[in-house]
């Protein structure tokens, strides 16, 4: 045991002096996460401050109901502002320029058409790039249209299509509005088990570069064989497995330290939200073990350290891309199934499961999956090592 630790300490000292571990383990991923978050972090944000205008060209009672009752309720809800105007062209121009999110236009003769049972139209003008604000405006107008339609239907079905008696119409309109709403909509807001863009990118970069960081420990075995120090190590009263253990320990320490620095730095510097500390620690440790195991397996199959490095890099990039570190992979189709074969995807899933206030228990399935990768990797590597020997 002590031999393994000594070997590991020697390797770690070498790495730190070389600065390459520092570069790959911390500087590059953090730098990239920072760049990505400045680029993407604010890019997809949606501003929900709505600026609406309404032009009432009609002036009749139905139009007035929309302007005086429906729209003020929108303002009262705090959704945004509504201004009234007389000039359609001016409003149209402001929407086109993007100064207004959307505008409502009630054409002349609107109220007359509604009360006589003819068709009527509310025009919603939306700015082309304000699709959500326009959708909401259309929804507001539709809600009003539905109310009006209810009255029209009731009047039509009771008094016939040519109903003209204003008193009767009024009575029915009142009766309809006094009807209790038969269908209530019980809204439930779910906790979104998804990472925000900044955290997603930070975590993606961290787990991607992890697979490069842990290479240093496991590949040094091959390097020592080439340089000749391995034979001298084995000549000493040090067990073969102590030597291997030392190398694995190096990878493990490098991986955990670099991940820890990345987690803290991305949290402090760019506002990534990793989640429950215990859960994150669990995922990091399991992730490092899985990465070490896979890289060790490749090293056990390679003949030279250069060959090992190349294959490790290839596997790291392929698993990373398929695992969704650069962009999310949707869950459907064969691609969605392929992504589950990567430890990267499970690491990200573990974090997502805890997003929005979950605890370490939520991360257990992902941690378990990572340990499966580790078991398979180490198992196969051990078989290779025992068969080949450390000659």
């Amino acid at each position, binding site marked *: 045991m002590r031999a393994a630790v000594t070997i590991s300490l020697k390797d770690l000292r070498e790495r730190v002096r070389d600065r390459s571990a520092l570069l790959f383990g911390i500087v590059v991923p953090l730098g990239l996460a920072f760049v990505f978050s400045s680029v993407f972090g604010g890019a997809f944000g949606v501003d929900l401050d709505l600026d609406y205008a309404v032009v009432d060209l009609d002036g009749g009672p139905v139009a007035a109901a929309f302007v005086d009752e429906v729209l003020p309720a929108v303002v009262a809800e705090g959704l945004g502002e509504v201004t009234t105007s007389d000039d359609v062209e001016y409003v149209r121009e402001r929407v086109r320029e993007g100064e207004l999110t959307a505008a409502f236009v009630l054409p002349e003769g609107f109220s007359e058409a509604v009360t006589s049972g003819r068709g009527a139209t*509310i025009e919603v*003008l939306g700015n082309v790039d304000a699709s*959500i604000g326009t*959708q909401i405006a259309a929804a507001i107008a539709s809600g009003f*249209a539905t109310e009006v339609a209810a009255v029209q239907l009731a009047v039509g079905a009771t008094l016939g*299509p040519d109903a003209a008696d204003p008193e009767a119409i009024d009575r029915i309109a009142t009766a309809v509005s006094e*009807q209790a*709403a038969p*269908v*209530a909509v019980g809204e439930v807001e779910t906790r979104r088990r998804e990472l925000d863009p900044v955290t997603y990118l930070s975590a993606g970069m961290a787990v991607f570069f992890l697979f490069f960081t842990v290479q240093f420990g496991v590949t040094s075995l091959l390097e020592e064989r080439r340089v000749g120090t391995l034979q001298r190590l084995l000549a000493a009263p040090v067990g073969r497995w102590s030597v291997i253990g030392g190398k694995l320990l190096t990878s493990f320490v490098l991986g955990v330290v670099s991940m820890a620095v990345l987690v803290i730095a991305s949290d402090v510097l760019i506002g990534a939200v990793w989640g429950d500390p215990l859960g994150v620690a669990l995922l990091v440790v399991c992730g490092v073990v899985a990465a070490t195991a896979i890289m060790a397996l490749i090293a056990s199959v390679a003949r030279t350290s250069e060959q090992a490095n190349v294959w490790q890099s290839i596997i790291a990039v392929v698993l990373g891309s398929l695992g969704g570190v650069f962009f999310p992979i949707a869950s459907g189709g064969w691609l969605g199934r392929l992504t589950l074969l990567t430890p990267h995807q499970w690491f990200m899933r573990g974090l997502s499961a805890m997003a929005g206030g979950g605890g370490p228990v939520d991360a257990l399935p992902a941690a378990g999956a990572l340990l499966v990768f580790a078991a398979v990797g180490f198992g196969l590597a051990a078989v290779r090592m025992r068969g080949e020997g450390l000659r």
Partner: protein
Amino acid sequence: MRAVLSIAAVALRRMLRDRSNLFFVFILPLLLVLLIGMQFGGSFEPHLALHVEEGAGALADDLVAAVEEADVFVIDRADDAAGVVDRVGRGAAAAGLTIPAGYDAALRDGGTVEVGLIVSPSATDQGVASTVRAAVGQQAATVRAARTVADASGVSFDEALARVEAVAAVVPGVAVETSRLGESAFSDFEGLGQFDLGASSQLLLFVFLTSLAGSATLIQARQWGVSRRMLSTPTSARQIVLGEALGRFAVALVQAAYIVVGTRVIFGVDWGDPVGAAAVIVVFCLVSAGAAMLIGATFSNDAQAGGVGIGVGLGLAALGGSMAPIEVFSDTMQRVAHLVTPHAWANDAFAELVRRGGGIGDIVVELAVLLVVAAVLVTTASWRLHRVLVRS
């Protein structure tokens, strides 16, 4: 001249013969274009998770039909309410709707009933939720009208509902007409082939990245004493520098040509006007060659150069719009991108050529900027390399 060409040829041969490059230079770019095209190239349709309990009744089916008719999203049916909540939570659906058993019966009896609408706090999903609310509102309005008719005329609810539905077929009601005004920043993305955007952005990313990664060979040449031996021959330092520059350029050009041909053949990618595209590619290869030479001349540790090269290569690509299109950047970030990266200008040029069908005349500004950047990089790098060689 022959010395220059043979030095360049060696650089090219080394790159092609290195077996690890087989993956990183040839397989990976196409793999990423494929992945990006599959993930983002298609059109986006939001999903609605739906669960209708057994015995919800005919009116529930009407509600579902109304929701389907809106034709705004894809409907995924779940086996139970928990499945709906799970889908929305995971982000597989933008919103969820559950309709309880006895929905129809309650409405016909004059009672009230509650449907469940599961929403996510994400603003982009509000559109789906509001469409569902509108559909529910419409059915509620029909029911209220029917109840009023039943009260006023003294008929049964079923009869009243039939009358109301008959009127609904005839009365046009109030329509809401939505029109979009203004010029969209995204308007020219429509009509883009599924793989076109990924291809041009990945071309820039990989040409630059491969060049930078290859800068390690320049350092190795110095480390292994090859440069010293070259200088001892009747080859001047200036010829060596020129040869290395040409070599870097040749490597970048081969990478670019491979991606253009490969994506055209395999994915049917449209690269726009050939003259314009060739101009952009040649100039961008010059920029990449210059950057690679600068790194090769500045660093003396090839592992460090490799790390820096990858970091700078990926970072500039992200900043320059080779990972997400520049159009989604904020105004500040767009300015930063154009100030700091050659990728931004090259991506703009391709946007003009591919999305707006422009020709070489439309990208003169972009080409000029890239040429200036290339000139500065190559000159600085050559000067540095010359000094380093002569001193060694």
